[in-house]
């Protein structure tokens, strides 16, 4: 089917299928799934600027459903999420302006594609290594499987930074942390959201767990809460810059809505480090797909 806004021919069933897959990931891992949806859209022939804007748009609708489910489960720290939104929105806007400049210079596909590959490979390797380390800690030290974090030392040091104003997040078990740390996490993930078209969950969730030091299940829900705002604002600013194919986003979201149902319920059967170990494979798949398209492949080659 021809999508006139993004000027590309792509099967709507393929788009709904991508949405379905990332819907499962969103509900299950607490991430928007943009880090895998973006590479899949790029691989299927969608121009990079539309990949970024449309990916954010489809996540907006999906994250509302997933966040609501996780909130019902008590996995959302509203106070923490609300503070992070400030940094996120600034980051998203700067990221969107970077994309506008890259689009104008004609280098968007190679630059953003390469950044995608590097970030996805780093995240995959780091999460895999850390999860194995945490699982070993559970076996040897009898730690609670929900709370085992391989980098508790980093979280303690970050919480020890006394840059005022200090805030507390009782729902996440944090007695005191600098507000700038929280806003900084929001800014970094917002920048990635605006520039890569992702919700930022694949970097926000590790930052929330390893740097801020909140439990994995709260990180999952709070991340989805945050994605509602980062993807919503990202959709608006990218749409104003002509980077969003709403029809494509709506089609993807129909698949995602079904997938999110499966993902959210699946979290009942997996906890802590095991979630993160599974999570580590997904960025690797995304990196391979982007590399295929950058090397001239993609769906046309199949």
């Amino acid at each position, binding site marked *: 089917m021809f999508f006139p806004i993004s000027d590309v021919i792509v099967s709507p069933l393929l788009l709904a299928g991508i949405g379905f897959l990332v819907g499962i990931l969103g509900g299950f891992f607490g991430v928007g799934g943009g880090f895998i949806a973006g590479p899949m859209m790029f691989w299927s022939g969608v121009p990079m600027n539309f990949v970024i804007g449309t990916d954010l748009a489809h996540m907006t609708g999906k994250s509302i459903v997933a966040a609501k489910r996780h909130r019902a489960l008590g996995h959302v720290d509203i106070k923490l999420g609300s503070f992070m939104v400030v940094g996120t929105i600034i980051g998203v806007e700067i990221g969107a302006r970077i994309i506008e400049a890259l689009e104008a210079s004609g280098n968007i596909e190679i630059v953003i594609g390469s950044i995608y590959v590097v970030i996805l490979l780093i995240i995959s390797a780091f999460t895999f290594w850390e999860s194995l380390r945490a699982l070993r800690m559970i076996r040897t030290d009898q730690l609670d499987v929900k709370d085992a974090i391989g980098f508790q030392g980093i979280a303690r040091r970050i919480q020890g930074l006394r840059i005022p104003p200090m805030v507390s997040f009782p729902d996440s078990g944090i007695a005191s942390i600098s507000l700038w740390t929280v806003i900084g996490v929001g800014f970094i993930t917002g920048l990635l959201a605006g520039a890569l078209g992702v919700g930022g969950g694949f970097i926000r969730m590790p930052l929330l767990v390893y740097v801020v030091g909140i439990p994995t299940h709260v990180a999952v829900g709070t991340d989805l809460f945050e994605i509602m705002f980062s993807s919503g604002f990202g*959709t608006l600013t990218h749409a104003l810059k002509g980077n969003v194919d709403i029809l494509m986003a709506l089609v993807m979201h129909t698949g995602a809505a079904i997938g999110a149902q499966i993902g959210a319920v699946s979290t009942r059967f997996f906890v802590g480090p095991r979630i993160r170990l599974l999570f580590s494979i997904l960025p690797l798949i995304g990196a391979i797909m982007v590399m295929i398209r950058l090397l001239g492949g993609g769906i046309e080659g199949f």
Partner: protein
Amino acid sequence: MKNPSVRKLVINFAIELVVYGILVLGYFLLVLRYLNSILTELYENNMVVYAFLGLGLVVAQGIVLEYVTSFIITKLRLERLD
């Protein structure tokens, strides 16, 4: 599947998914049929309206689909275990 609560969860969930899937498929076809030309015209002529309408559409779709889910659960008496 020995655990009765897990079995109940899976059965309820499967019914919900089938009903939900049929409704979403119908909506999917409606979107493709009617929205294509309207959105393309707005994209070419009024980017501000297109941006806000686009955001409104994806948010509305998210809310409506969640409402449909709750409606199905209530009407079919599918008790949620999560």
